[in-house]
């Protein structure tokens, strides 16, 4: 994927793609969440609607209770409005049951079906109660009242009949009082429903009947009237009994039958309520399970989407960050001045590609800088070396001046000193002595001339003989030997030239001078003649140098003086001829040929001068 991205899209586009993909994932997550929440809210709504069934249950219970209360009020108090309310409540309830019957599921419907006949029965009983009560009221207001007043009238008639007998009158009066008491007891009974009042009333009725019968037994004249009164009293008792009977009847109906129906309804509604509660619990469990499921799915979806997003982000990051990180390393190396920094391969010309291009320009620049630096280093080294050469030359020059001033002053001191002596001797009249000193002055000046000539010769080395050419040492030394053969033979000195000498690059006359000086020294310090003085010249190849040796069998040189002998005007023996310039010139000649000279020697064992020439490009041992 990373490779695909890198190959097909520029950096900007890659970032945009990343944004778009991330946005899409977010949108998908939002949509999923919305779907989940709408599903949950549907469940919730259905839960709420099922909770309305509770309402039915509560309605039932409440209304039944209310109806029953109104019925009781009506029964005991006799308010007609209460009866009306019972009727309205019944009708309303019935109507609601009918509507609910249509709306509810079969289970609830079954309950409602059970409830309805009970309700209807309840109402039928209520109507019966009402009827009984109406009858009772009628009895009280009409029959009972009429009988009472009829008896009262008969008793009043009897009172008139028995006006002469106060005893009978008193008895009749007591009957009236008893009748009043009966009436009062009836009303009390109706009010309180205490059956003791009924018993009391019955007793008083019995007593009234007994009193009347007693009067009838003693007064036959009035027998018919009395019998009439007894008969009326009997009727009164009957109507009283009927009222009581009716009252008990409807009380039974309301308290037993209606209450039973009401309890039945309440019981059913209680069962319904339990059922609904159970159903709700089931539903609730289902909803919570559903919610959990949805949330789980949502979580899984979100996780998967986030993982996808992370993958996309990672691949974009790789496609951007990795090349940039590599580039950063490259730039770090480049800023360190490296010209070898590896530049990551990147085939595209996007923003990173441009950076890579910049890095490679940077590297080119670094390379240039490095070249310049090396060039400058080279120049610095050259400058240093020339500075050293200059310093060396200066030192040498100083040495030369120092030596020269000393050695040139010496003959002057001698001359002046002897002039002074001569003057002194002349003053003393010793003219011959004085003149004999003149030789010293002449010698001294001659020596000074030699010194100056030697010095000029020394200074010429390397100054006027700059033309170097290829020199075959074999040919050169052959000629050299031939030139000196006669003189050397005369003094018995052997010069031996070895074969296979190298070819060098140099100034011929100076090289020749070099060998002459060495030969001169060898001859000068030659040992006693019976041993036969000699000088051998040969060569060996040594790495990239040609080493030429000049070995004599002279007295040798102590190690302490082996360096000094190459110094200007240095002599080991002030009896020997010469100014001490020879080896100084030899050393200078070697130096201008880029070579070197040194001596290997032990006192009494001869000396060997080694000449080191750098091997010429064309130089081959021929």
């Amino acid at each position, binding site marked *: 994927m990373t490779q695909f991205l890198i190959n097909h899209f520029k950096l900007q586009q890659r970032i945009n793609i990343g944004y778009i993909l991330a946005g899409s994932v977010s949108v998908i997550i939002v949509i999923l969440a919305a779907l989940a929440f709408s599903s949950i809210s549907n469940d919730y709504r259905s839960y709420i609607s099922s909770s309305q069934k509770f309402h039915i249950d509560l309605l039932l219970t409440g209304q039944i209770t209310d109806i029953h209360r109104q019925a009781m009020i009506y029964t005991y108090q006799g308010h007609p409005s209460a009866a009306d309310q019972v009727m309205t409540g019944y009708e309303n309830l019935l109507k609601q049951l009918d509507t609910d019957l249509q709306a509810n599921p079969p289970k609830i419907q079954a309950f409602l079906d059970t409830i309805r006949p009970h309700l209807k029965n309840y109402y039928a009983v209520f109507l019966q109660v009402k009827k009984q009560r109406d009858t009772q009221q009628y009895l009280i207001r009409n029959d009972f009242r009429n009988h009472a007043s009829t008896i009262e009238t008969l008793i009043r008639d009897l009172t008139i009949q028995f006006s002469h007998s106060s005893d009978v009158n008193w008895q009749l009066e007591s009957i009236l009082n008893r009748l009043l008491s009966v009436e009062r007891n009836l009303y009390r009974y109706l009010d309180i429903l205490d059956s003791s009042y009924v018993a009391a009333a019955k007793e008083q009725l019995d007593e009234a009947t007994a009193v009347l019968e007693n009067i009838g037994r003693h007064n036959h004249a009035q027998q018919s009237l009395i019998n009439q009164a007894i008969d009326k009293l009997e009727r009164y008792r009957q109507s009283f009994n009927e009222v009581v009977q009716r009252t008990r009847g409807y009380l039974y109906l309301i308290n037993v039958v209606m209450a039973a129906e009401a309890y039945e309804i309440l019981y059913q509604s209680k069962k319904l309520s339990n059922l609904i509660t159970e159903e709700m619990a089931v539903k609730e469990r289902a909803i919570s399970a559903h919610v959990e499921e949805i949330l789980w799915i949502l979580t899984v979806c979100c996780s998967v989407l986030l993982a996808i997003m992370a993958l996309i982000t990672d691949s974009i990051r790789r496609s951007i960050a990795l090349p940039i990180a590599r580039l950063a390393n490259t730039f770090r190396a480049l800023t360190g001045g490296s010209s070898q920094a590896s530049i990551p391969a990147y085939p595209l010309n996007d923003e990173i590609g441009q950076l890579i291009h910049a890095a490679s320009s940077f590297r080119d620049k670094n390379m240039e800088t490095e070249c310049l630096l090396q060039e400058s280093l080279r120049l610095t080294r050259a400058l240093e070396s020339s500075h050293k050469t200059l310093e060396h030359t200066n030192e040498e020059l100083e040495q030369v001046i*120092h030596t020269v001033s*000393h050695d040139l002053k010496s003959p002057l001191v001698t001359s002046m000193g002897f002039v002074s002596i001569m003057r002194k001797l002349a003053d003393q009249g010793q003219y011959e002595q004085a003149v004999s000193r003149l030789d010293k002055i002449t010698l001294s000046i001659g020596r000074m001339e030699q010194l100056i000539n030697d010095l000029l010769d020394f200074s010429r080395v390397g100054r006027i003989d700059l033309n170097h050419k290829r020199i075959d040492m074999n040919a050169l030394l052959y000629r050299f030997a031939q030139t000196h053969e006669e003189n050397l033979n005369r003094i018995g000195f052997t010069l031996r030239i070895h074969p296979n000498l190298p070819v060098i690059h140099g100034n011929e006359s100076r090289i020749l001078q070099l060998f002459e000086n060495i030969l001169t020294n060898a001859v000068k310090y030659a040992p006693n003649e019976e041993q036969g003085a000699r000088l051998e010249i040969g060569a060996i190849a040594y790495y990239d140098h040609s080493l030429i040796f000049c070995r004599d069998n002279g007295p040798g040189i102590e190690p302490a003086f082996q360096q000094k002998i190459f110094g200007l005007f240095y002599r080991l023996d002030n009896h020997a001829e010469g100014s001490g310039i020879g080896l100084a010139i030899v050393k200078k000649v070697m130096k201008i040929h880029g070579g070197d000279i040194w001596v290997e020697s032990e006192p009494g064992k001869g000396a060997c001068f080694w000449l080191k020439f750098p091997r010429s490009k064309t130089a081959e041992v021929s």
Partner: protein
Amino acid sequence: MTHQRRNLLLIEDSYEHAELAMFYIAEYRQDIDIIHLPDGGSAMQYLESIRNGERPLPWLCLLDLKLPKYDGHEILSTIKDDEYLARIPVVVFTTSAASKDIQQAITKHANSFITKPMGADRYGMTIDSILKYWELNQHERI
């Protein structure tokens, strides 16, 4: 002035200069014996014999710097680095007037550094002055 004869060590490679010195010393001081050593090698040998007690310590040493074999500086070092020889008063008497030579000699405890004069009569006067100065000096009593 002492009645004993004095030894003067003259280390000088130039026979002419040695002759001049000897001429003037003989002229001014008859009690001085001059020992002329013409090169560094013989000078070293002579100093060795002094150290061995074969020869007495000289009264004064006139030392030239430019010498065959060992040069004056080396001889000065040999004298001044040796506890016994260091007592020898050394007057460096040379044609050189180079500051390098002077500095080197003084550092090595040369007792004096005198450049050989070039004027007509000055060589003798200088020799005389050196002798007079070292006669005033109590150096020998060390």
